[in-house]
């Protein structure tokens, strides 16, 4: 497997847009070609070679190409844009729009990642060892198509609107989520192992949000359905038991919220609906 190592020559303050940092672009190109590729740094066109030290081998095809970015690149946007295969390893923090419109391959970040990670991604894997920003797996402004497939795993915490407008695929957050996890969800699965700040599944029409920690209260537009022992997420079964809610009533939605009973005692009052 060919490996291309990309190291920032300095800390970037001005945002850098580097869609070219993707296996599809670099594979089959010479180091020189890659160094001469122009990218935006703020309002200037600069050579990639003037921002990064680029070493190693690009590989012949996308699939046998691995890009390794070493050092913090939180100011670098759009790494892995529209990538269809191969892999990217970021050894540090990654910037916004990581893996936007991704169609295949994998991205692993050892540090944190910015907002809009995996926006409108179709397929592939994204794994972040640290925290991620807001609206991961989300959609472009005003559009109604979020993540369409693939798997995103965040080991740390996430910001607001995890999986906004999500149409399919799976997002797994091992830490906590801020407000509006699964907002406008149309399908797919979001699993939050930690706590949610609340308003989970707002406007959702379908799909599933599973919260193992505290769900932060359930919106009045969700109705309590039943208690279930397990929740299915992809092909794995997560053991509960769970309070199950359906909604969003305001959108004539049939989405499902799973809140693990053990960490949601504040929802116990819903059990009175069971007797009836």
């Amino acid at each position, binding site marked *: 497997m060919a490996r291309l190592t990309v190291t920032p020559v300095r800390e970037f303050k001005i945002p850098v847009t580097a869609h070219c940092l993707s296996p599809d672009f670099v594979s089959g190109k010479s180091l020189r070609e890659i160094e001469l590729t122009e990218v935006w740094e703020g309002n200037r066109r600069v050579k990639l070679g003037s921002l990064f030290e680029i070493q190693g081998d690009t590989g012949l095809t996308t699939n046998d190409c691995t890009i390794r970015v070493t050092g913090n690149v939180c100011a670098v946007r759009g790494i892995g844009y529209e990538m269809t295969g191969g892999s990217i390893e970021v050894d540090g923090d990654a910037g916004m729009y990581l893996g936007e419109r991704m169609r295949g391959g994998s991205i692993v970040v050892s540090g944190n990642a910015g907002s809009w990670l995996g926006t409108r991604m179709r397929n592939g894997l994204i794994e972040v060892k640290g925290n991620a920003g807001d609206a991961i797996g989300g959609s*472009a402004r*005003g559009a109604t198509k979020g993540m369409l497939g693939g798997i995103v795993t965040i080991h740390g915490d996430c910001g607001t609107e995890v999986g906004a407008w999500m149409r399919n695929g799976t997002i797994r957050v091992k830490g906590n989520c801020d407000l509006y996890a699964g907002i406008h969800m149309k399908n797919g699965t979001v699993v939050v192992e930690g706590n949610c700040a609340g308003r989970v599944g707002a406007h959702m029409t379908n799909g599933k949000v599973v919260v193992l920690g505290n769900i932060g209260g359930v919106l009045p537009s969700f109705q309590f359905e039943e208690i279930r022992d397990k929740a299915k997420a992809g092909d794995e079964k997560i053991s509960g038991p769970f309070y199950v809610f359906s909604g969003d009533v305001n959108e004539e939605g049939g989405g499902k919220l799973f809140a693990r009973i053990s960490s949601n005692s504040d929802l116990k009052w819903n059990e009175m609906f069971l007797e009836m």
Partner: protein
Amino acid sequence: MSELLVKNGYVFDPLNGIEGDKLDISVRNGKIVERVSRRARVLNASGMTVMPGGVDIHSHIAGSKANCARMMRPEDHSKDPETKTKHTRCGVGHTIPSVFTTGYRYARMGYTTVFEPATPPLKTRHTHEELNDIPIIDKGCFTLFGNNWFVMEYIKQGRINELAAYVAWMLEATKGYAIKIVNPGGIEAWRWGRNVRRLDDVVPNFDVTPREIVRALCQVNSLLNLPHAVHVHPNGLAEPGNYQTTIDTMECVHDIPTREHPLIHVTHVQFTGRKGWAWPDVRSGAPEIADYVNTHDHVSIDPGQLIFTNVTWMTADGPAMFALFKLTKTKWFNADVESETGAGVVSATYKKGNYVNAIQWGIGLELALLVKDPWKVFLTTDHPNGGPFTAYPRVISWLVSNGARQKLLDKINKTAKRRLNLPGIDREYSLHEIATVTRAATARSLGLSSKGHLGAGADADIAIYNIDAPKLDLSKEYKAVKKAFARAAFTLKGGRVVVKNGEVAQSVQGRTFWTKPEVSAETMGAVTKELESKFDDYYSIRFANYPIEEQYLTASQVISTKGEV
């Protein structure tokens, strides 16, 4: 003194009866002249087709509702950005382009004059701000009258002369070009969430009917000798069975004495030409409407052709927009304007497989093909309602080629194809007819004597296309036709080359046309006094702050008419 000679092109100039003859066009100081001196710069157009600059009679390019749509639809822009160049400002497309992009894209297609067909008087200052900013093309806007309190009250009181004076005052105050009626009375009813659907329904609280509104404003149009006909969007837009209302609307003014050009123009008929009782059995009302138009000379129409793509609906017809939103469940914007009119915006997508969409597509083309006289039916997509104006070349390819139409007919909803008359229509437009429906006829209908032709005295707005007229078989080579009309080889505006090989070569400031009808001092004096006394009761701004000063228009072009009041 700048001189230019457009040499050896195949010239199509319907208004002067020139049909593809190889001619030279002489230009001096922005105008077309009989001949120029030897020193004139020569523009070699041999092997190319030369037409007057395109004149669009109905395209929503500016004003508050267009801007609401832009604000509401970032997803529409992000997929179609325009990067700045040496000659152009940056901007965005697609269905609701930003102002600079609008001007450039029209010019690239060889269009040089465009009219915004619906401006709410109270917000027309906004419309003019945008028109000022639209580069290259000449423009103007039609002022909305169909739901105006003063108008309905004058009609109720039967004071037609005062109504005429009021319209004259309003056109001057808003720097408007023509009378526009949208869903007469229906938008006033929308104040209470209601609508009026037929020509004789009564408008709540005002006790007048759409029929009375349309008739009175058509009479006023004649009394004031306005350059354009009354531009009407009838009641019952988009409703199944509304074709009858459309015909009734045309019929209800047939007895009013008309001048040389038609008295009433009924617009985007594709939306109001539907037979049937409910959505599942919607049929084309085009044959009936075309038949009426073919047998009456007081009326002209435009189809508002549908394109299978993502579009933005925008109209002053608030109730119709809400009705359509209930079907699409997308985004809905509504903006009522006090004492005058309203506005609605909805995002939507037309699909080939969708029965109703396919029927709509068929209605538009049937109208264009069944109306025999090209001087009575103009090319529009009711931008951006039927489709973006950038789709005109595609529509042209359908008009000139039965083959192109049949190809698409095979892809649309089967039931729709079966129920349409289109498969049986084999008429194909000639370049001459295309030149008529895209320029000559529209210019004549608008009463713009200096537009739409290439005779001496006309503005030197010229479009030159890569079409070797005698050689090219339009029907077979419709793809080439589409390409040629999408990117003009040259576009001249006021004698200056603004587009070269489909790219903007320089940007100029276009003019804004508006109408100033003259009425007798005493009638106007009385009416103004009356307005002043009622104004504070009707409006939330002061009378003095309402009219728009002429200086407000960057390049004002007034057309004065002599009223008989």
